[in-house]
């Protein structure tokens, strides 16, 4: 099968399931006890779709990303659940099989990635190396160069700069190059964990726009992970809200923003300042995120939840469907008021 040199997504028909995460449970073993970092998480990424995972730091977002990529540290244990890419379980693969799928099928853009370029090699050569390792056929030097140039063009970098060294790039340019690298082998999925967190707003905006454009044009499937709900609002169609290792709400981005059904999502939105709309009092979220070694009983949000009842302390609410493609894990979701857009 001859590979085209087009830059494209190798995913299937738009809208069909691509990456399925089912009841994933992942813990870290520590001296103090087990950290329940990912607890019974289920979601699906469809072909051509951009979804978001949002939550405070330490709630398990990065842990999910690392589990999907199987890049977990030694003290981690995937207790149960499964991750399927195009129907094939990634959890069952051995290291060598997984290594072949990374970059090729499932690639990544991490927060610190722009600082992970090797300072002694040219940026272009580092992407070339990735192509040599992961592209299924051997390309000629010329073909590689053309491909890298095309990738640079796509992410808004001047192709001539591929001859430069990392220190000659600004932070934003380096992060663009990371995106080029992530796209280099036409992956089916890109996982972007805080892709713009360390960048200034203007650069962040440019890169997010670039990513969104690429995602639309190539029909790429992307999982965005961020602590910043405004970023998730910008770039995703569907989103999940995580709290203390659990996925507490899942739905279309617009639904979650306008009609959140989980008290945590609601308070998160209410406590996010914005430069648009009327100046308003923000609602502080009382307390702090729990320790995941001994998470609270029942609903993990109950110590901070204004709607909590005895039932919440005793029983863990299951993820229930509350609308089309909208599910939430809360006993009292009906009591959560509507927001109807922050601008109102």
């Amino acid at each position, binding site marked *: 099968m001859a590979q085209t040199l087009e830059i494209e997504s190798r995913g299937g028909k738009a809208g069909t399931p691509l990456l399925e995460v089912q009841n994933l449970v992942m813990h870290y073993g520590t001296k103090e006890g087990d950290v329940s970092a990912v607890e019974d998480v289920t979601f699906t990424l469809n072909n051509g779709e951009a979804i978001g995972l949002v939550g405070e730091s330490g709630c398990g977002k990065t842990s999910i990303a690392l589990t999907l990529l199987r890049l977990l540290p030694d003290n981690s244990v995937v207790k149960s659940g499964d991750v399927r890419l195009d129907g094939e379980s990634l959890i069952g693969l051995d290291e060598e099989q997984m290594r072949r799928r990374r970059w090729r099928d499932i690639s990544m853009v991490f927060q610190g990635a722009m600082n992970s370029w090797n300072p002694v090699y040219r940026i272009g050569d580092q992407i070339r190396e990735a192509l040599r390792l992961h592209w299924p056929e051997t390309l000629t030097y010329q073909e590689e160069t053309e491909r890298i140039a095309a990738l640079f063009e796509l992410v808004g970098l001047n192709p001539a700069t591929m001859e430069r060294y990392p220190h000659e790039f600004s932070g934003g340019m380096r992060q663009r190059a990371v995106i080029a690298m992530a796209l280099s082998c036409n992956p089916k999925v890109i996982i972007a964990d805080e892709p713009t967190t360390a960048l200034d*707003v*203007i650069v962040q905006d440019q890169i997010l726009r670039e990513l969104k454009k690429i995602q639309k044009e190539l029909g790429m499937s992307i999982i965005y992970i961020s602590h910043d709900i405004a970023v998730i*609002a910008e770039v995703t169609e569907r989103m999940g809200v995580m709290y203390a290792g659990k996925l507490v709400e899942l739905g279309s981005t617009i639904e979650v923003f306008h009609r959140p059904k989980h008290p945590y999502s609601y308070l*998160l939105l209410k406590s996010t300042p914005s430069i*648009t709309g009327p100046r308003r009092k923000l609602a502080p*979220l009382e307390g702090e995120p729990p320790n995941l070694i001994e998470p609270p009983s029942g609903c993990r949000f109950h110590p901070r939840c204004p709607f909590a009842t005895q039932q919440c302390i005793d029983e863990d609410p299951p993820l229930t469907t509350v609308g089309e493609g909208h599910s939430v894990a809360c006993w009292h979701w009906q009591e959560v008021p509507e927001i109807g857009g922050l601008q109102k």
Partner: protein
Amino acid sequence: MTEPMTDIAAKTTPLVKVENLRKLYPVSKNIFREAHDFVHAVDDINFEIAPGESLGLVGESGCGKSTTGRMLTKLTDATSGQILLDDKGELIDIAHIQRSDMRRFRRRVQMIFQDPFESLNPRRTVYDTVAESLTVQRIGRVQEREERVAELLHRVGLTPPESFLFRYPHELSGGQRQRVAIARALVIDPTFVVADEPTSMLDVSIRISIMDLMLKLADEFNVSYLYITHDLAVARYMCDRIAVMYLGKIVEIAPTEELLANPRHPYTRALLSAVPVPDPAYKRERVDIKGGISKALNPPPVCRFIERCPRATDQCRTSDHPGFDDLGNGHLVACYNL
């Protein structure tokens, strides 16, 4: 929430008045030769802060916000210019302060830092940290200091204080540490506090309670803030007025809502248009500007924004960096083509 203090600086004598403040950092490749290259970290800025007012200083990283804050707290010496602090009717020039005035100055001006994990000495207890300025300046007896610290802990929400007094930083969460840092800044009853990104390392859910606390204490202690942040939404929540900085220059100052509703400088417009909005239904109007922020190394005397400015004209290319135009209502802009 306090109403925006429009024109407040005009009504009262300012608490802090910054005039032609500059900070140049020499860049020398050779230790034996005098430097010829300078980074103009802060280049000839002017602003005033009224008593009880909080001024936001916003801009991208590296634009000189923190350097300004450090000069105002005397952590860095100014290259030139004046920083006048009103101490009960008497003006102290912080930039050229006498040794004998140093103690008085340290009682008036305090600072809150960005990183709650690095700004507390890991080997000192909460009490030691909060009481530090009282101890150093020999204010009160030990018993009185302890009581004052306990009171401050109570005020910043670390209750009951006795359970926090003798904890070490590693026994506190990020939010609690930042509360300790706030208590440390206020324990000596200052009139002016420089807050350098005090909430940017905190999680959203904790950020709001810290911001609310700072607002409440500003009222109770009657302090003014210079609130440094890169986040315009945070500045909007915290500040009466906002100053926008670009490469060492202040390009626009206005009361908060005025600035957001009616930005005039091309850079402010670009900055505002790039802030993501937490509502997927909201469509932002985009102002495109070229490239990213560069370094202010030996900048030419023309407008600092010229390379990226979509409106630059020949006048911009041939004239010096523009001075402030007063648009009324305390709205000042430095640009030739409004």
